[in-house]
């Protein structure tokens, strides 16, 4: 197991910049998830770590070794591909052992390694089958087995769950997390699914258009998004981003939400740091997670406020009910208790929890608090 450092890594094809200077560092045993919409460069970055793509400039370090010019097979890494990339003409056992065969590991040792991995992934009964005789989940297991048997410094996963059906995806996700806990392996994992990112990662790197938007723990990325892109990309339903203005209110500040068609709404804020008070009288974007807006399900405390809102529609999901509210003229999503029943058009008081309120500059869209 080893640390990984990506320093000012760029990738260009001609005049097109795919990656525009990425800096990411993770420690030994961390689970890094690269997440972002398609075309953000996350898969290219993974290919570059794997050595399947060349680096235009910058350095990639595995442990203390610069690996830019090392052949993929010499980097001591193993990769699980989205398509699994099993060798179709070989049995499962041969698939797992192929890398060892290429490295001229003695046959007895190979047999033992195959048995160990098969036991770990509970697939002893599959060893003699061909990939074409396996289900999607079993192929996924074999692909992981082929990576595990190498005991590499770093595991690379390229959207490994995206070809599985929804139920299996959740099961395999748990298995991968268990595996990470047991092996204490360093893992780099690419996905476009923010739930996979949140559940698996110890560190999330959110990317967009070849730029790193934010690098942090799942809770940092979720609770303190660096900008509005991260705020809306992570979390489902996504964070409510409400345009508003900071106005003086008594000794402190208030958030004024005013849509030009309806009367405004003022929410008094707790004392704010200087970075925020500098914005008095200016436009900002307020970010509130749906679970920070509720009714009876939210504990009232000194940082909760009662606000008047119109209910537009409710969407029961089972564990809770999502509601679209009109708050100061803007539609926001709220998470209410499971058995909340309101008629459409209901007007009433809802609770807003300001502990999780984040604010962004309306021009740069960067977080100010």
């Amino acid at each position: 197991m080893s640390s990984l450092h990506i320093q000012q890594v760029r990738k260009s094809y001609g005049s097109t910049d795919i990656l525009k200077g990425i800096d990411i560092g993770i420690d030994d045993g961390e689970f890094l998830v690269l997440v972002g919409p398609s075309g953000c460069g996350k898969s290219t970055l993974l290919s570059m770590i794997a050595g399947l793509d060349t680096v235009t400039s910058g350095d990639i370090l595995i442990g203390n070794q610069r690996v830019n010019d090392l052949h993929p097979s010499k980097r001591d890494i193993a990769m699980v591909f989205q398509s699994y990339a099993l060798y179709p003409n070989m049995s499962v056992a041969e698939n797992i052992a192929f890398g060892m065969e290429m490295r001229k590991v003695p046959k007895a040792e190979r047999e033992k390694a195959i048995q160990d991995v098969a036991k770990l992934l509970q697939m002893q009964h599959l060893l003699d089958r061909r990939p074409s005789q396996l289900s999607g989940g079993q192929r996924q297991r074999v692909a992981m087995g082929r990576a595990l048997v190498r005991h590499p410094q770093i595991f690379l996963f390229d959207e490994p769950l995206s070809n599985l059906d929804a139920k299996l995806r959740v099961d395999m996700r748990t298995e991968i997390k268990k595996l990470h806990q047991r092996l204490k392996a360093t893992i780099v994992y690419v996905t476009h699914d923010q739930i996979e990112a949140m559940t698996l990662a110890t560190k999330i790197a959110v990317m967009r258009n070849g730029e790193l938007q934010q690098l942090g723990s799942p809770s940092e990325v979720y609770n303190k998004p660096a900008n509005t892109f991260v705020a809306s990309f992570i979390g489902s339903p996504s964070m409510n981003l409400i345009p508003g203005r900071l106005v003086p209110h008594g000794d402190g500040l208030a958030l004024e939400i005013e849509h030009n068609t309806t009367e405004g709404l003022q929410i008094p804020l707790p004392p704010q740091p200087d970075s925020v008070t500098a914005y008095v009288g200016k436009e900002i974007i307020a970010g509130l997670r749906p679970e920070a807006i509720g009714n009876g399900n939210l504990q009232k405390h000194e940082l909760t406020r009662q606000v008047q809102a119109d209910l537009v529609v409710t969407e029961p999901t089972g564990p809770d009910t999502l509601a679209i509210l009109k708050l100061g003229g803007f539609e926001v999503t709220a998470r209410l208790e499971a058995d909340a029943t309101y008629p459409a058009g209901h007007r009433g008081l809802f609770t807003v929890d300001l502990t999780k309120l984040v604010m962004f500059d309306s021009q740069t869209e960067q977080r100010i608090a």
Partner: protein
Amino acid sequence: MMTIASSPRQTRAASFADWLEVRLPKLVLAPSVLITLVFVYGFIAWTSILSFTRSKTIPKMEWAGVLQYAKVLGHERWHVAVHNLMIFGVLYVLICMVLGLLIAILLDQRIRHEGTLRAIFLYPMALSFIVTGTAWKWILNPGLGLEKLAHDWGWSSFHFDWIINEQMAIYTIVIAGVWQASGFVMAMFLAGLRGIDQDVIKAASMDGASLPLIYWRIIIPQLKPVFVSALVILTHLAIKSYELVVALTGAGPGYATELPSTFMYAHTFTRNQLGMGAASAVMMLLTVAAIMVPYLYSEVRGPRTSSH
């Protein structure tokens, strides 16, 4: 309600359109089905019948049992023809496959002008065998082809007269045949190579396999269906090849490049041995069928057994 009220003429027109829609495919196909039935299967049957008669110049319905087969099998020229077919068939199929695969692998390395090169390699297949045979007859003719060229350039010891050499003439047919078909085989292999998942190659590369090893262990084994198709197509081309020999060597010198097909033609149409010609034709048909029938059977059955 509107359709019921519509005029009888309209209904009739509509029903004719319906009738046409149902039967049009059958009507369109009928002539070719009929032609195939008569000229392929009808004549196969007719030839088979003739092979059991004493027919000589004209068909004669006199039962001869397997006499004609015995005569063909005892014939010196038939032995030469079968022996030649062995040499030609094995070399033609093998060299075409090896060369085709090699060119396909080289073309698959993401080179520039791949389209142009592919067309160049594939083009010989667009020529008729007669043109190929005639062209190669000139190229291989010692008096005006390669040998003369080498002599004119001053390499006077150069000697290449296979086409007039009884021992070597059959190999000139292999040369011309390979020239014509290897590009086609290349196209088949190239299509197969393009169908291979690039991730598998990346995975093998990360596993530490060198490029030749990746081809040998991972890629070529996946081309098995292409090998089978190429083998079947080339083998039946070899067995029925006729025009190439006629144009290139005329089955000569003497009858040194006789093939079963030229044997059949000679006995049927120039030597007044209709029965023997028919018997040799039936034997060729059975050989081709022995290869094609299992292949077609596996093609038809194949998808059902491999999918699950």
